[in-house]
């Protein structure tokens, strides 16, 4: 069940250009939280910002009730967030959405494909997979060298390829280039990133089973406003809500 609570900021670090990692202490239990879920964060405490911002859960320490998020400053909301101080409290809705259903899957080997700010949720996913004995291969795509983060963290969990659009770090190109070059074998793929990337990934891997975590602008974040719908193949009016039914979907469940 989603609840509203306050998280206390215990640490803020700029871990790559415009990219911040924040460690948050919860007063509510995080035991039910699954990889791929997100928190919906209120920005400021006055009326200037009417909409909350969805940010994925990048890591969890359930016994310590600690959560990590990683976000990139792209506009006023994330900018305000980045300026918050240690000790400040974030008003959040938690846990939002439906994550990666890894407990229901038969998987020995998984391919994780993340792009930009789609990388963070894959980290907690990778940790959970490895803990279940799954072998993980990771492909991370970034704009350029300055934006790369979490490479070592992923490398400690499995093979990790980094690709940058401009080739300033790792190989040059898109995540799909790496998939094509490496042709890795796996049972399931799990991908998160901007929609154009997910579209390319799901086309490239159209013969494989996989899960995509989508990004869409949100209003409520809890399923009431219909801001975040994505069409599904059943009919011309069928849909899923990214905030509630997603953000994680089976690759063929939605029309990108």
């Amino acid at each position, binding site marked *: 069940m989603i609840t509203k609570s306050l998280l206390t900021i215990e640490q803020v670090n700029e871990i790559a250009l415009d990219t911040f990692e924040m460690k948050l202490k919860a007063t509510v239990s995080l035991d039910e939280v699954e990889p791929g879920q997100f928190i919906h964060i209120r920005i400021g405490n006055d009326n200037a*910002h009417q*909409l909350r911002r969805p940010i994925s859960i990048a890591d969890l320490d359930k016994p310590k009730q600690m959560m990590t998020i990683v976000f990139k400053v792209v506009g006023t909301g994330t900018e305000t967030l980045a300026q918050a101080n240690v000790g400040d409290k974030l008003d959040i*809705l938690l846990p939002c959405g439906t994550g990666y259903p890894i407990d229901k899957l038969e998987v020995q080997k998984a391919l994780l494909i993340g792009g930009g700010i789609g990388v963070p949720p894959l980290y907690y996913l990778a940790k959970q997979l490895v803990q279940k004995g799954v072998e993980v291969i990771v492909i991370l795509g970034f704009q350029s060298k300055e934006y790369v983060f979490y490479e070592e963290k992923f490398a400690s969990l499995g093979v990790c390829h980094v690709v940058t659009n401009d080739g300033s770090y790792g190989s040059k190109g898109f995540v799909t280039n790496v998939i094509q070059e490496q042709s890795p074998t796996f049972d399931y793929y799990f991908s998160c990133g901007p929609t154009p990337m997910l579209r390319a990934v799901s086309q490239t891997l159209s013969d494989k089973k996989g899960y995509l975590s989508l990004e869409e602008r949100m209003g*409520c974040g*809890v399923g009431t406003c219909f801001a975040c*719908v994505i069409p599904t193949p059943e009919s011309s009016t069928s849909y899923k809500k990214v905030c509630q039914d997603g953000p994680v979907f089976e690759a063929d469940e939605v029309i990108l």
Partner: protein
Amino acid sequence: MNNLAVELPGLSLKNPIMPASGCFGFGREYSKFYDLNKLGAIMIKAATKEARFGNATPRVAETASGMLNAIGLQNPGVEKILAEEVPFLMQYATPVIANVAGSTIEEYEAVAEAISRSSNIAAIELNISCPNVKEGGVQFGTDPTLASEVTRRVKAKSNVPVYVKLSPNVTDIVEIAKAVEAAGADGLSMINTLTGMQIDLHKRKPVLANKIGGMSGPALKPIAIRMIYQVRQQVSIPIIGMGGITSAEDVLEFLLAGASAVAVGTANFQNPFICPEIIDALPGVLEKCGFSSVEDAIGKGHEHATADISGA
């Protein structure tokens, strides 16, 4: 005695607070946050005759103290809403107000007829002001003749009171309000969103796929207050007010302007508990401002108090 109660055509409200149409779905999600019995009423999401997918995404954008939306009346169609959504709300002792939309007068009539066959709906909110659909919607709300015609014909098909929801995108809101009153409206619901746009500097195009969307939230409040105040002076049917309400103080401002009850929209997204929080805070705010009840405050912003010479 409950000093928050309000009697309106078809609606015995335990308090004047209801979630606004389109900002509360059909109640299921927020029912997990709190007991919907707490609410004065519930305005459910717009119904059209057939299912609609609505507009492409992005459908929302944030603006200063407000937001834009262009959902585009996505809904499963009136029959499905009555069969699959409304029954859930029947477990609550809270009246349900159905928002009726359409592209043609015939569609409005058909939706109103379907609703009138149900016994679960306490009132209709006739949405002649949706700015986010290509056809129908807002044009009925900006032309007094069309507004009057659709009101008259929907009234004829309805067995529950009809509150006509007005668009603020007009030169003279009083003219429209008078037209729908004359056409038999039982009440007014005002205001819907003001059409606006935001442009993405990098993509060099409007943020919303629909380009234009409706602005709601606190930014809209002064416009809503002005329009309600003006309409209250020339029209006698009751007004359900809305536009940027985020606090019990805001509610009182709407009551003073002439609203008899209010709806809270966008604020639900910022704080899912906003409606019960406002309901809890309202008695204190009424008292602090010297009102004995909600009914006592309605329209009181039209009488002019005199200044005092107290030292503070």
